[in-house]
């Protein structure tokens, strides 16, 4: 099945693009995709631990199971400010 990864801010800079289509096995979880991403882009490894992930615009746990045509967004820490 095909999913789309949306990359923002520092992820966009590491990937060199803001979108990426991946062909993954059925019943893959968010975590499976993240492991794949770490192999493709080793610089994402340390960031993934401090990020949140959204599937079709809803924040999800990494155990969430993806389905065909899902959009997985990589959400680094938001800007904050005091």
């Amino acid at each position, binding site marked *: 099945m095909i999913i789309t990864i949306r990359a923002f801010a*520092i992820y966009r800079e590491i990937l060199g693009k803001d979108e990426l289509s991946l062909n993954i096995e059925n019943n893959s979880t968010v975590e499976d995709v993240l492991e794949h991403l770490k192999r493709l882009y080793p610089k994402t490894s340390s960031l993934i631990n401090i990020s949140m992930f959204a599937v079709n615009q809803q924040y999800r746990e990494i155990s969430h199971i993806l389905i065909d045509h899902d959009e997985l967004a990589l959400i*680094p820490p*938001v800007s904050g400010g005091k």
Partner: protein
Amino acid sequence: MALQKVIITHETLETDKLVKLLRNPTNGAFVTFEGVTRNNSNGKNVKYLEYEAYEEMAKNTLHEIIKEISQETNVDQILVAHRLGKVEIQGISLVIVVGSAHRAEAFLACSSIVDRIKQNVPIWKKEFFEDGSSWVGIGG
């Protein structure tokens, strides 16, 4: 008349115009908040900022925040506008306008919204210095 509005834009934010969108004869109070760009961060000189968003999700998340705060405070006129792209020093990056019959709930609603926006809206800020740049919240 309830009015809940979210604006995410690359254009300059003009607070006066935004306040006018909430003009209503039942209002006795308007509270306006402007977030502006500081010229320093952790002792370093900031030249300018750049904002980036996951626009569709940021819009939805902001609408959810407004709805929650509106219910909590009984204020039904709230506008949130966020700037994207390059913002110069003292440029406005965030405008919140709250209109209500009385001032107490308007102040409360406004400050609650700012706090909530800082937590979980997918909008990122990059600071540009004389000698480089850094995404806020990551330190990278």
